[in-house]
C-alpha cells in the first residue's frame, strides 16, 4: 500500500478519490456544497446598505451590499440608469491575494458579473430612470469575498441576486417649481427584477472528468473551468469557459443540463428565504 500525501502529491491523492467517483470531502462528483443565504438588515447586518445578502457555499463566503444613489443619466442614453458591480478579493479571504490594486481575478470576476447583469437583463436600465435626461438611480453593487474556498463566481451571482431582491428604493419626485429632487424615505418600492440568473461552475480534471462546485484545492488542480449562467426560462445568459482543456460539444451540453437543474434548486431556496423575511 503506497502512502500518498495530500501535500506532497495532491494530484495523485485526488485521482484516487476520483477513480471511486467521489471527492475527499465526501461529496459525489455532481454534488453541491451546502448553500445558505442570509438576506436583509436583520440577518445580514449591513445596516447602511439599501440591500444586502450573505451567501455561503460550503466555506466560500461572499457578501453583497447594494447602495442606491442619484445621478444624471449619460448624454447618449438619457433614459437609462446605471448598475456598477465591483468584486473585491481582499487579502483576508485567501493567502494568495495581496493588498493593493485589484488583481486579475477580481477584475475578471467584476467583468463577469457586469456581463451577467447585462446579458440576462435582470434589471433593465430604463427601470432605474426617474426623469429622462435629468435624474436616474445608480446601483453600486459591492461584492466582497470574506472566505475563498473555490467557486467564487457562483456565490457572487447568487449574492448579487439575493441582495437586489432585498433592495427597497425610496420614491423620488422632482419638484416642478424648484427643479430639485425630493426623496421620500417613508415610501419604498422594491426593484423590478425581471430575470433570475443562476451560475453553475464546473472544474475539468485530466481533460475528461467534470466535477461540480470545485473547492479552492480542486480549482488549483483542475485543468480548466466552465461556468454556465441560466435563467428561469432555460435560456443561457452566459457560457464562460476561459481556456483550459478542450471540451466536446456533448460535454458542454451535459454541463448546461446540470446547470438548468441547479437553477431550480437555487430559485426555490431564494424564494423560501425571501418569503421568510417579508413582513406579513
Amino acid at each position, binding site marked *: 500500500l503506497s502512502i500518498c500525501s495530500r501535500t506532497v502529491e495532491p494530484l495523485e491523492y485526488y485521482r484516487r478519490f476520483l477513480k471511486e467517483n467521489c471527492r475527499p470531502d465526501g461529496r459525489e462528483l455532481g454534488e453541491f456544497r451546502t448553500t445558505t443565504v442570509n438576506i436583509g438588515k436583520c440577518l445580514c447586518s449591513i445596516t447602511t446598505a439599501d440591500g444586502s445578502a450573505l451567501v455561503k457555499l460550503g466555506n466560500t463566503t461572499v457578501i453583497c451590499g447594494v447602495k442606491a444613489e442619484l445621478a444624471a443619466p449619460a448624454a447618449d442614453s438619457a433614459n437609462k440608469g446605471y448598475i456598477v458591480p465591483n468584486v473585491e478579493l481582499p487579502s483576508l479571504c485567501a493567502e494568495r491575494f495581496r493588498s493593493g490594486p485589484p488583481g*486579475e*481575478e477580481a*477584475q*475578471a470576476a*467584476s*467583468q*463577469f458579473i*457586469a*456581463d451577467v447583469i*447585462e*446579458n*440576462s*437583463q435582470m434589471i433593465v436600465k430604463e427601470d432605474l430612470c426617474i426623469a429622462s435626461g435629468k435624474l436616474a438611480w445608480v446601483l453600486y453593487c459591492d461584492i466582497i469575498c470574506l472566505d475563498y474556498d473555490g467557486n467564487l463566481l457562483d456565490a457572487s451571482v447568487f449574492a448579487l441576486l439575493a441582495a437586489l431582491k432585498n433592495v427597497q428604493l425610496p420614491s423620488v419626485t422632482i419638484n416642478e417649481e424648484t427643479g430639485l429632487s425630493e426623496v421620500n424615505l417613508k415610501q419604498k418600492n422594491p426593484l423590478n427584477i425581471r430575470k433570475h440568473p443562476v451560475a453553475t461552475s464546473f472544474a475539468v480534471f485530466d481533460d475528461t472528468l467534470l466535477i461540480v462546485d470545485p473547492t479552492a484545492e480542486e480549482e488549483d488542480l483542475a*485543468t*480548466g473551468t*466552465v461556468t454556465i449562467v441560466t*435563467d428561469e426560462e*432555460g*435560456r*443561457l*445568459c*452566459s*457560457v*464562460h*469557459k*476561459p*481556456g*483550459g*482543456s*478542450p*471540451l*466536446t*460539444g456533448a460535454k*458542454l*451540453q451535459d454541463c*448546461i443540463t446540470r446547470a438548468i437543474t441547479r437553477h431550480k434548486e437555487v430559485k426555490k431556496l431564494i424564494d423560501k428565504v425571501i418569503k421568510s423575511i417579508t413582513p406579513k
Partner: protein
Amino acid sequence: SVSPGDTSVLAGLYGPAEAKVSKELPDRAALEVLLRPKVGLPGVMERSREQLLRQTCEAVVLGVLHPRTAISLVLQVLSDAGSLLSCCLNAACMALLDAGLPLAALFCGVTCALQPDGTILLDPTARQEQEARAILTFAIASSERKVLMANTKGSCSVEEMQQCLAAAQRAADTIFGFYRDSVRRRYSKS
C-alpha cells in the same frame, strides 16, 4: 498582424525568456498576456480578455518543456470593426506559430452573431454585433475541433448555442487553411 475585414490586431511574442523570481513556476513556463486597447488605458474589460487569452494559450502551449521561463504575449488593437476577441485569438495563435513554440494543438477564434430573426452570422461587423440578440465567441482547437474557450454576450437558447457551435466548428476549417497558407508562404521564400 491579423486583419479580417477592418479589425486589426498586432501580436508580439517574447520568450521563452528568463522569468522574474516572483513570477517563475518551477515546473512550467509562466505565460503572460497584455492586451492594449486602441485608445485609453487598459481597463477591466481588457483584464478579463487577457485572462481568457492566457488560459486558452496555456492549454495549448507545452509549458512543461520550458520550466522557470516567461512567455509574454503583447497584443495591440490597431482598429476595431467587430469580432475583436476572435481576431485577438487568431493573432495570438499565429504569434505562437511564428515564434516556434511547442504547441499541443492550434486554435482559432470564431465569432457568431445571433440575429433577432434567428439566423446565425459568422464574423459579424460592429453594426451587425449591435443589432444581434447574442454574440458568441469560441476558440476551436485543431484536434477534433473541440471547444477551448467560450464567451457569450446576450442570452440565447440552448439549441441556438449548439447551432452556433456547430457553425463555428465548420468555419474553423477555413481559418486553419488560412494558417497553413500563411505559414507556407512565409517559409517558401526563405
